[in-house]
C-alpha cells in the first residue's frame, strides 16, 4: 500500500474524529430543529428597521393561539372555557388568564384616565369641536339626559354632564367582531350555540420542534379533559403553532420514508451487485458521515437545521452513493490485477471532476438570496464533500479484494457496449433511428416551452392539512370577522412622534372604514393619545365647553342650575392636569389588550403596530401608507410573490452564467467540441423537462428553475464519467447506470412530499437526471478499442 494512501487515510480519520466531536458537542448543546416555513424566505424589506419591527410583531402574533369553546347552553360553555383555561395554564406551556377575562372593567379604566380628563376626547367629539359644531354636542347631551339613549354611561351623568368622558371610555370597549364581553368572558351566540373565546399565548417559540411537541401534547390533554367534563362541548383551534407543528410532523414522516426507501434500494442494489457485506458497509458509512457533516455545518453556520433541509437532504443519499459506486465498481474492470492505487488512479480524477461540477451547481445556489435554499445548498455541499472524501481516503485502505464473481449488471453492460467484433459501426449519434427520435423530442420540447406558464405564489411554500384550514374558517365564521396577517408599522424617533404619526394614519383609516374598504383596526393611540392631541383636546374644551359662553354653562343654565354651581363645575375641570404618559398607560391593567401592538424601542427608534380587520383591497392600504412619513404597510405574503418572481428571472440568468463557466473549465480538459458534448446532456435534459411541464400544463416556479443548476452539475457527472471511462466502458457504464438509477429514485421520492416546492424540485430533477443519463449514453464517445489507429 503506497505511503501516500496510508497518510491520506490517517489524516482523514483524524478529520472524521474532529467531526464526531463537533457533532457530539452540538448534541449536548441541543440541536435546534426549525420548522418556520416562512423563515425559508428572504427578508423582504430593504429598510432594516422596518424589517425588524415586522419580524418582532410577526413573532408575537405567531405565539397567539385562539380557542373557542362551544356548547348549547351558556353556563356549560363558561364552565368549559374556565376549565380549559385552567388546564392550559397548569401545563406550563401557555400563558392564559384564568378565568379568561374580557378585559379589565370600567373601574380600572376610570382610575387610569381620572387624572387626565381634560386631555381626552373621543374622535367624534373632537371633530365636532374642531369644526365648531357645538350644537351637535349639545343635542346629543340633551338627548342622553332626557331619553333612554343616555343610560349606558361608564361615568355617571352628574360627573360628566355632556357625556364627553363616557364617550371616550366607550370608544375603548374591547370587542372582537361578534364577540361581546359577558360575565367576564368574550362570548358569541350563533347558530344555536354559545361560544366562548379563550385567548392563549405560547410561552416558547412556536417553531422550535421540541417546544412544538410540548404545546401539541398540552393542547391534546386539555381537550381530553374538556371532553370528559362536558361531552357535548366543541373546540375550535387556531394558531400559527398548529400549522407549524403539522408541517414539522409531516416533514418528519417524509424524512423517515424517503430516507428509508432510498437506503433500502441502495442496500439491495449494492448487495446484489457486489454480493458482499463490505461494499455495503462502506457505502452506508460514507453516506452517514456525509449526512452528519451536513447537519453539523448547518447548525454551526445557521444556528439551526430546518426540517425542510433534511427532507431535501434525503436526496443526498442517491447522489453521494455515486462516488462509492464508481470506486467499488472499478475492481470489476480487471479483477485480477486491480489494486487500490490503481483504482484511485483510474477513478480518482473523474470522481473529483464530478464532485467539482456538483459543488459548482450547489455553490451557485449558495448565492440565492433565499435562506432556505442556502441552507439546503450548504448541507449538500458539505455532505457530498465529506462522502467523497471518505471514498477517496478511506476506501482504498478498507475496500479489500476485488469481487470474485461477475455481476449480472456488468454482463449486461458489457453486452451493450460490444458490438459484433470487426464490424465498424458508425457512432451512435449518426444512426438515422436515434436521430429521428431526437428530432421529435426537440420539437416536443420547443412546443412545450412555448406553452410554459410560471407561478410565483406564496402557496408554493406550504400547504396546511385541510382539517386545520377548516378550523380557521370555522373560527372566522363564529367571530364574524377576518383577522388579517397584514399590518401597519409606525416608526419614529420618540414615543410621542410615533403616536402622532399613528394618529395621522388613523385619520386616513377612519375614512376607509366609513367607505367600507376596511372593517376596522386596532391602534394604541386610540387609548393613548399623543401629547400634541391631548393639548388640542384641552384647547378645544377650554374654548368651546368650559368658557364662560361655552357649552357646559349653556346646558347647565338650561337645566335650571344656579350660577354658583356652574362656576364650581367649570373650575372643577383642571385644564392644567398632567398629560397621560405611555408609562402610566402601560402600567394599568386596562391597557392589556393593546399592549402587544406597542413594539417600544426597537433599537433604531420606537415603533408600534396597527392591525386591520376585514380588508377589501390591500392596494388601498398600501396607498394609505405611501403618503405618510414613518408608516409602512407590512404585507409579507404579497411581497413574497413579487420577490419570487424577481428571483426566478435572476436564477435564469445565473444558470446561463454557470453553463458558461463550466464550459470554459471543461474546454481546458476536453477541448471546445468535447466540452460541448459534455454539456449537451444536462442542457438537453433541462429543456426537455421544462418542455414536458409546459406540455402537461404544470406551471413552473422559481424552484424548478433553481434545480436546473443542480441538473447541470449532475448531468455533467455522467458525461464526464463516460468520457473518462473510455478505456473500460462496461464498468463505467455500470457505475454511471447505477448512479443514475439511485439519484433518479432519490429525487423521485421528493415528488411525494406534501410541501409544494419540494415536490417541484423532485418533479424537475427525477426526469431530468434520467434524461441526462440517456443523453450522456447516446453521446458517449466510442470504446477506445474501436477507434481507428
Amino acid at each position, binding site marked *: 500500500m503506497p505511503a501516500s494512501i496510508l497518510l491520506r487515510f490517517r489524516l482523514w480519520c483524524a478529520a472524521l474524529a474532529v467531526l464526531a466531536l463537533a457533532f457530539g458537542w452540538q448534541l449536548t448543546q441541543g440541536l435546534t430543529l426549525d420548522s418556520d416555513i416562512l423563515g425559508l424566505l428572504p427578508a423582504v424589506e430593504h429598510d432594516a428597521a422596518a424589517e425588524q419591527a415586522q419580524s418582532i410583531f410577526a413573532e408575537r402574533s405567531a405565539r397567539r393561539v385562539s380557542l373557542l369553546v362551544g356548547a348549547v347552553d*351558556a353556563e356549560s360553555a363558561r364552565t368549559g372555557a374556565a376549565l380549559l383555561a385552567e388546564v392550559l395554564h397548569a401545563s406550563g406551556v401557555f400563558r392564559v388568564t384564568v378565568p379568561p377575562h*374580557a378585559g379589565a*372593567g*370600567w*373601574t380600572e379604566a376610570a382610575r387610569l384616565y381620572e387624572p387626565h380628563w381634560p386631555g381626552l376626547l373621543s*374622535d*367624534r367629539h373632537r371633530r365636532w369641536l374642531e369644526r365648531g359644531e357645538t350644537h351637535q354636542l349639545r343635542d*346629543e347631551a*340633551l*338627548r342622553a*339626559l*332626557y*331619553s*333612554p*339613549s343616555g*343610560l*349606558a*354611561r*361608564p361615568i*355617571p*351623568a*352628574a*360627573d360628566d354632564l355632556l357625556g364627553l368622558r363616557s*364617550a371616550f*371610555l*366607550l*370608544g*375603548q*370597549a*374591547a*370587542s372582537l367582531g361578534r364577540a*361581546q*364581553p*359577558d*360575565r*367576564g368572558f368574550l362570548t358569541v351566540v350563533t347558530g344555536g350555540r354559545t361560544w366562548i373565546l379563550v385567548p392563549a399565548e405560547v410561552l416558547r417559540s412556536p417553531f422550535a420542534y421540541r417546544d412544538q411537541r410540548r404545546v401539541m401534547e398540552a393542547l391534546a390533554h386539555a381537550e381530553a379533559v374538556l371532553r370528559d367534563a362536558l361531552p357535548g362541548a366543541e373546540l375550535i383551534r387556531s394558531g400559527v403553532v398548529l400549522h407549524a407543528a403539522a408541517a414539522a410532523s409531516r416533514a418528519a414522516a417524509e424524512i423517515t420514508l424517503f430516507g428509508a426507501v432510498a437506503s433500502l434500494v441502495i442496500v439491495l442494489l449494492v448487495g446484489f451487485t457486489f454480493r458482499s457485506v463490505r461494499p455495503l458497509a462502506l457505502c452506508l458509512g460514507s453516506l452517514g458521515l456525509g449526512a452528519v457533516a451536513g447537519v453539523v455545518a448547518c447548525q454551526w453556520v445557521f444556528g439551526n437545521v430546518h426540517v425542510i433541509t433534511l427532507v431535501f437532504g434525503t436526496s443526498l443519499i442517491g447522489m453521494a452513493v455515486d462516488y462509492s459506486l464508481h470506486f467499488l465498481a472499478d475492481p470489476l474492470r480487471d479483477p485480477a490485477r486491480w489494486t487500490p492505487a490503481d483504482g484511485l488512479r483510474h477513478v480518482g480524477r473523474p470522481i473529483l471532476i464530478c464532485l467539482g461540477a456538483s459543488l459548482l451547481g450547489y455553490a451557485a445556489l449558495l448565492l440565492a438570496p433565499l435562506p432556505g435554499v442556502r441552507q439546503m445548498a450548504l448541507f449538500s455541499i458539505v455532505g457530498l464533500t465529506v462522502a467523497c472524501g471518505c471514498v477517496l481516503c478511506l476506501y482504498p485502505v478498507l475496500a479489500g479484494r476485488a469481487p470474485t464473481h461477475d455481476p449480472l449488471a456488468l454482463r449486461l453492460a458489457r453486452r451493450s457496449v460490444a458490438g459484433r467484433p470487426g464490424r465498424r459501426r458508425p457512432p451512435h449519434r449518426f444512426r438515422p433511428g436515434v436521430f429521428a427520435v431526437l428530432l421529435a423530442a426537440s420539437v416536443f420540447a420547443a412546443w412545450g416551452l412555448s406553452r410554459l406558464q410560471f407561478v410565483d405564489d406564496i402557496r408554493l411554500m406550504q400547504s396546511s392539512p385541510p382539517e386545520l384550514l377548516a378550523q380557521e374558517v370555522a373560527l372566522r365564521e363564529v367571530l364574524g370577522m377576518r383577522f388579517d396577517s397584514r399590518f401597519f408599522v409606525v416608526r419614529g424617533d420618540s414615543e410621542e412622534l410615533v403616536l402622532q404619526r399613528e394618529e395621522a394614519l388613523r385619520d386616513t383609516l377612519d375614512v376607509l*372604514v366609513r367607505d367600507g374598504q376596511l*372593517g*376596522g383596526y386596532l391602534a394604541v393611540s386610540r387609548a393613548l393619545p399623543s401629547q400634541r392631541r391631548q393639548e388640542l383636546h384641552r384647547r378645544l374644551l377650554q374654548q368651546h365647553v368650559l368658557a364662560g359662553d361655552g357649552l357646559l354653562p349653556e346646558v347647565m343654565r338650561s*337645566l*335650571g*342650575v*344656579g350660577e354658583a*354651581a356652574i362656576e364650581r363645575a367649570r373650575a372643577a375641570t383642571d385644564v392644567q392636569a398632567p398629560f397621560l404618559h405611555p408609562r402610566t398607560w402601560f402600567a394599568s391593567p386596562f391597557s392589556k389588550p393593546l399592549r402587544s401592538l406597542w413594539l417600544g424601542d426597537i433599537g433604531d427608534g420606537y415603533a408600534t403596530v396597527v392591525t386591520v380587520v376585514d380588508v377589501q383591497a390591500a392596494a388601498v392600504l398600501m396607498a394609505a401608507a405611501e403618503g405618510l412619513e414613518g408608516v409602512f404597510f407590512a404585507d409579507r405574503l404579497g411581497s413574497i410573490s413579487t420577490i419570487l418572481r424577481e428571483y426566478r428571472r435572476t436564477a435564469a440568468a445565473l444558470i446561463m452564467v454557470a453553463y458558461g463557466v463550466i464550459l470554459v473549465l471543461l474546454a481546458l480538459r476536453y477541448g471546445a467540441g468535447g466540452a460541448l458534448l459534455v454539456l449537451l446532456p444536462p442542457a438537453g435534459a433541462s429543456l426537455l423537462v421544462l418542455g414536458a411541464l409546459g406540455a402537461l400544463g404544470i406551471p413552473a416556479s422559481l424552484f424548478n428553475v433553481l434545480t436546473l443548476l443542480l441538473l447541470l452539475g449532475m448531468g455533467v457527472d455522467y458525461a464526464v464519467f463516460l468520457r473518462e471511462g473510455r478505456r473500460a466502458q462496461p464498468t463505467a457504464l455500470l457505475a454511471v447506470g447505477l448512479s443514475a438509477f439511485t439519484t433518479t429514485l432519490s429525487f423521485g421520492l421528493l415528488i411525494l412530499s406534501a410541501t409544494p416546492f419540494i415536490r417541484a424540485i423532485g418533479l424537475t430533477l427525477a426526469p431530468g437526471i434520467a434524461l441526462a443519463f440517456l443523453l450522456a449514453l447516446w453521446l458517449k464517445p466510442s470504446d477506445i478499442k474501436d477507434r481507428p489507429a
Partner: protein
Amino acid sequence: MRCVRALLAGTLLGMALPAGAADVFEHPADPVQLYRDLSASVAELRKWPRLEGRFTQRKHLDGFPAPLVSGGSFVFLRGGGVVWQTTDPFHAELTLSATGIREQGRSIVEEGSGAEQAMRLVSGIFLSVFDLDLEVLEERFALYAMPHADGWEQGWTIGLRPRDAAVAVIAESICLHGQRLVERIELRDTRGDRTEVLFHDVQGSPAEMTAEERARFE
C-alpha cells in the same frame, strides 16, 4: 275629623312610599317561580302584540336642584322594538331594537364602535323589561321579587342587579314596579343618581306589526 286626617295621611303616605322598593333586594327570586306568580296579573300584557301609551322620565342628578323631566309617547311592538317619541321638552324620536338605538334611520353613535355595543345592550334590556322576558333578564341580572302586601295580583316589585361589569354600566340596580304591566322603572347608579320612567295610559292592541314598522327595526 281626626280619623279623616289620619286616613288622608295614610293614603298620601301609602302613595308616596313605593311598595317596598328598599327591601326587594332581600328577596331573591327564581325565574320559573316568578313567571308563575306573575302569570295571573300579566296575562293580558302577554296577549297583546302591541302596546301604546305615554311616558314620563325623571332624572335626579346629584347637585341639581330639580330633576330633569321629559315626556312623550311610545309604541312597543313585540318581536320588533320600541318607538320612543319625546315631545317635551323637545321633539325627538328614537327607535330601540335588537340592533341598537336609532334616530331617523341612522345609529346615534358611530357604527362598530364600543358605544354602539353599549346602545345595543340598553336596547336589549329595555325591550326585555317591557316584555317582562324573565329568561333574558335572568341571563344578565340576578332577579329579586316581592309581591304587594295583598298578593301578586295587586301588584309587584321586581329587583334587578347586574351580573357583570358590562351591564353595570347601565345601572347599579333596577327596580320594576307594576301590576298588569310595568308601570314604573327605577334605575340607580353607583353615585346614587336616579332615573325614573313612569308609564301611563297604556293600551294593548291586537294590531300586528306592519311591514313598514318591521323594516324600521331591522
